């Protein structure tokens, strides 16, 4: 085999590209497909809740609960009626909105701040790296939920503050992950090559190191969406949820139904399952992405 031939083969393999290959593997993973299904349903319901819900989530029909709480599922009310005579099905659909918005914004906060901190720490190194990482250690030393409760307590309960609180508690995770990933990439030959031909430091970081270091961050981002949805519900459960009653939220629905657990367990089970299904969707995708992006598994199929 001639030298030229070997190079040709290597080029041929590389032309697949990490992302197109990952995409191909993802499509073949049944878990990923189910996950995409759940997430697509969740996002669709979240966006189009006003169009598809049969009733307003706030309309109270007190006649329905005149005989006690609470009538179970029926043809007109698929998931039954809640303790205030509202249609549970519509409320679950609307609940997807809160979870979707909070999840996406919280992860965006964590991701952007974590990327900047981790990127700077990993690429600049030295004292700045140590200082930033010690700060992250301090944040990680406080149990996440208590940290989030603390931030909401400090800023006051509101949708925005809940998103900030959940985002901030996730910053150190992203920062550490990206820093570690960058440190691993920094020693690579292609970085040395870029530096030796005079590419400026910041563009080495942005266009050479980051694209290669980013895949674990993307996986973590997907998984963080799942935990964000669960954490929001947890905050609601502790009484620190979105204070606006006009926005139904799954965690709050679960908590409110606590008193009716004996007579109407479906009021707790349905929003609870909604949380599980949407979190499961993101976890399935994250899991499949991790496998698809794993460089050790590349080219095996």
């Amino acid at each position: 085999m001639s030298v030229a031939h070997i190079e040709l083969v290597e080029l041929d393999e590389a032309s697949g590209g990490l992302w197109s290959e990952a995409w191909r593997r993802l499509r073949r993973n049944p878990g990923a497909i189910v996950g995409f299904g759940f997430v697509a349903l969740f996002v669709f319901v979240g966006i189009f809740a006003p169009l598809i819900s049969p009733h307003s989530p706030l309309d109270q029909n007190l006649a329905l609960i005149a005989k006690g709480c609470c009538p179970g599922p029926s043809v007109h009310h698929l998931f039954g009626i809640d303790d205030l005579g509202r249609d549970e099905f519509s409320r679950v659909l609307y609940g997807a909105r809160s979870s979707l918005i909070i999840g996406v914004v919280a992860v965006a906060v964590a991701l952007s701040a974590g990327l900047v901190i981790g990127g700077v720490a990993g690429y600049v190194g030295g004292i700045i790296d140590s200082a930033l990482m010690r700060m992250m250690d301090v944040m990680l030393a406080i149990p996440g939920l208590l940290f989030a409760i603390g931030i909401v307590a400090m800023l006051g309960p509101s949708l925005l503050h809940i998103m900030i609180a959940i985002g901030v508690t996730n910053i150190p995770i992203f920062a550490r992950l990206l820093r570690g990933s960058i440190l691993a990439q920094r020693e690579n030959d292609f970085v040395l090559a870029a530096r030796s031909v005079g590419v400026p430091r910041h563009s080495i970081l942005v266009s050479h190191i980051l694209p290669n270091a980013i895949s674990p961050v993307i996986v973590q981002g997907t998984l963080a969406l799942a935990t964000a949805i669960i954490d929001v519900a947890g905050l609601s459960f502790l009484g620190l949820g979105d204070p606006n009653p006009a926005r139904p939220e799954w965690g709050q629905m679960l908590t409110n139904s606590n008193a009716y657990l004996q007579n109407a367990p479906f009021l707790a089970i349905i929003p609870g399952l909604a949380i599980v299904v949407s979190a499961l969707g993101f976890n399935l995708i994250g899991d499949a992405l991790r496998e698809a992006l794993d460089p050790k598994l590349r080219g095996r199929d």
Partner: protein
Amino acid sequence: MLRFIVRRLLLLVPILIGLSILIFLWIRALPGSPAQALLGERATPAAIVQIRHQYGLDKPLYVQYLRYVDTTVHGNFGTSIVSRRPVTTELRERFPATVELSVAAMLFAIMFGIPLGFLAAKRYGTVFDHASLVGSLIGVSTPIFFLALILKYVFAVRLGWLPSIGRQDVLLDTPHPTNFYVLDGIVTGHWVAAWDAVKHLILPALALGSIPLAIIARITRAAALDVQNEDYVRTARAKGLPPHTVDSRHIFRNAMLPVSTIIGLQTGLLLSGAVLTETVFALPGIGSWLANAIFNRDYPVIQGGILFTALVFVTVNLLVDISYGIINPRIRLS
């Protein structure tokens, strides 16, 4: 090895200093004053001034911080504003409850997670393997408090098999020398009390242990799969060792390395879950205590309690790192 331990211990110092400053400043940023929280809505201005003076809240910030550091270093975390009892006394009562709960949750997670993960790896690609993977994903996707509510509803309310709240039956009046109720029952010979405490622990431990169980099972499976393909496993099989010897000596022991790290990390993370579990089952542990302290603006409890939990958390992680060094010869000898 010693240098590694000393270096890790030194790293704790800046973390603890940073943490104390962070908690201190954060408390001052909370809206509403503790004097107000203590005296209620209709407090007279004079009473508020008096309380502020009594707790040193009228001093400049740096004086308050130095006082806080000084008393904390001497093991005095102050007095709770709400219960008016020393924070250390409450900590002594509540910390054992959380430790007991966490240990029970971790035991459950380890006892089921490791065999499950190992079996899944041995039966790689079978229905059992897929089911365990899906099961563990559902496990990490289920909010702890949801699972706790369901368990409470089914096993305590509907079936009445297990108690639903508290650490011990209220009618049992037994001594508590250590505040670890199970241990207390055994030490003082009150077997009924010990068994009662265990029964109170079962449901909370199942709820709190579900996520670590799922994670431990996954990591065990992945680790066992990795090790299975190592050359030394093939060698062991080739020289004719019985399969179960290869499983236990060559695969299992080496697969336990990453699992031990995860167990340590999860132990630290249990505290967040403990806040929710303790709330559902009305357990008087530190999780629910701290959450309530934040709601009530109970400054000394927040300061002392969070610092203490953080100290426990970093110590657990340090112990994990050290034990990892001890079990892993590659780290120990390098």
